[in-house]
């Protein structure tokens, strides 16, 4: 029976299926990115106002306006502009910010890590709280525990995040003075001092949703027959909790989480504005106000790519944890 462990035809087949799936998703990601680009390009031009007027003011001399418009190549028709923009993109050029004259890629490279930092800290916080919470409630024998859980999470979800953010700033920032109200310091772990409160605020919505979905999955898993198999085999408590309860329950939560993280990058616009964090969301707000076409396009494209990438990662992770997901 000394057969090689790998490279049997079926295992090989499963691997090529997965490869095919990933390739298909990457092709779809490219298509999504293209449409995000088209929409970002079109929407910002449809919006009233224009970058030239935003810079020079409404009282500027018509010649000056024409000159700048020509310099920015905004006087050619939009279709040509789009072709030029796409051409630059294919060569790795995101363009130059009209407002600051800086390279869009550089601005994104500076502000994106701040936003990703908020998201990473939020995710870590949410998982650390939501997973044990859902597990404790799902395995609790007291009948009032799930009711209390549902009521509390409903109340938390009903409070808007910007309100929580302001209360958080007043309580932790002004009253107890344990969180900075303004400013940012890049680099780990120095940035954590500035990120924990924004992350906590986002968690007041993320934890209820995540723990509820996970709790529902756990309750469903608990009733399945294979759970008894774990008991019958006499596996240890730790193994049982991971392999027979959590792992079979995680897939829906991970798919949800990848979706929520995609949405989260949008909601950082509000959080970054309230906490004065120099993230990509705040850059977007500034860019939209100034009608900074290249910067808006660049940031929206990054948002789109991020959403696509996170959802792909979520699907792959769910598939890896629970092979039933890929089988159907």
């Amino acid at each position, binding site marked *: *029976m000394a*057969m*090689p*462990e*790998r490279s*049997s035809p*079926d*295992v090989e087949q499963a691997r090529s299926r997965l490869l095919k799936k990933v390739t298909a998703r990457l092709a779809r990601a490219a298509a999504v990115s293209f449409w995000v680009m088209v929409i970002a390009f079109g929407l910002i031009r449809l919006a009233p106002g224009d970058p030239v007027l935003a810079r020079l003011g409404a009282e500027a001399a018509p010649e000056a306006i024409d000159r700048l418009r020509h310099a920015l190549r905004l006087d050619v028709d939009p279709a040509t502009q789009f072709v030029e923009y796409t051409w630059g993109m294919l060569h790795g050029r995101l363009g130059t910010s009209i407002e600051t004259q800086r390279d869009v890629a550089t601005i994104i490279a500076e502000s994106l890590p701040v936003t990703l930092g908020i998201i990473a800290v939020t995710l870590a916080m949410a998982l650390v709280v939501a997973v044990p919470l859902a597990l404790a409630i799902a395995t609790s024998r007291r009948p009032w525990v799930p009711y209390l859980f549902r009521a509390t999470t409903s109340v938390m979800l009903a409070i808007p995040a910007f309100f929580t953010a302001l209360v958080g700033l007043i309580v932790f920032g002004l009253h107890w003075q344990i969180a900075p109200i303004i400013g940012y310091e890049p680099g780990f772990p120095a940035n954590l001092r500035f990120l924990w409160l924004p992350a906590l605020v986002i968690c007041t919505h993320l934890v209820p949703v995540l723990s509820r979905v996970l709790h529902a999955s756990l309750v469903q898993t608990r009733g*399945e*027959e*294979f759970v*008894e*198999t*774990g*008991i*019958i*085999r*006499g*596996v*240890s408590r730790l*193994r049982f909790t991971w*392999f*027979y309860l959590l*792992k*079979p329950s995680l897939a829906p939560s991970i798919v949800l989480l990848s979706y929520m993280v995609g949405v989260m990058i949008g909601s950082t616009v509000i959080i970054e504005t309230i906490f004065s964090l120099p993230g990509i969301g705040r850059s977007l707000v500034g860019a939209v106000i100034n009608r900074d076409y290249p910067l808006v396009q660049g940031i929206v494209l990054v948002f789109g790519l991020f959403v696509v990438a996170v959802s792909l990662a979520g699907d792959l992770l769910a598939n890896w*944890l*629970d*092979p*039933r997901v890929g*089988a159907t």
Partner: protein
Amino acid sequence: MSLLTIENLTIGIPRGSAAPLAIVENASLWLQPGEMLGLIGESGSGKTMLCRSLIGTLRRRGAAILSGRITLAGTDLAHTDERAWRDIRGRRVGYVPQSALAGPNPVMTIGAQLREAILQGTPGADVPARARELLDLVQIRRPELVLAQYPHQLSGGMRQRVMIACAIAGTPELLVADEPTTGLDVTVQAGIMQLLRDIRARLGTAIILVSHDLALVDDVCDRILVMHAGACVEAVPAHAAPRHPYTIALNRSRIELAEPGTPLVTIAGQPPSVGAWPPGCRFAARCDIAQPDCRLGPHPPMRGEAHANACLHPERAA
């Protein structure tokens, strides 16, 4: 010296201040090492609960042992705590659950599940060698492929073979198979039954086979214990003529005995449901030969050694 002895076991659901709801009452059985016992009964007769008491998973279903004794080769199983159960499960008692399709853990490969069962049964075992040995024992071809697969990639029969392999990984003295062929094709069913007999022959494992198919159990087991409405009514050696009216009726309703063109024979009425057991013999309401004294007092206990019977009037049963 029998391997397993159950004496006057009563299993029920505690209901706070009210009297507990009995599911199995005064059940008794014994099992010799290497013996294969069939456990027969309609749904709700308590046979699954009786089996669960042997693996310590009653509490999960809200039930508990109310009285009686279970002894497995000197070990008391009726008063065992969770910690002690971990040493018994997989090592001394193997269990093949009812559902072949939903039994294996869907998020672990067969290899990982076998590994888990092997290490629980024999800590420090040579896992790859033992896994192949077990798969060979349950007649799974191409083990190197199956080890890398997930349950949903296997057929129902294969899944049940894997479950059996896991159950015997720790070479337990007792294997309990609770309707192991539910939901499987008839041909697959025959294969699983043959496999259980092989295991008994090769490893000397005592087996309790739960089923509602009297013909099947009569074929493969040494002895048959018949349960009806939470009580043991007859323990009959295989191929022997049944003496309890319930077993006789079950035997008559075997489908392969039916005359073509005539209606199938059934047992009139329903077994009384849990919580609504009448006094006396619980089969009396469905019994042709019931006498007035059959409906009095507690359920009659089984009497006799090799062929035990709970009927008060066995001489009238035909």
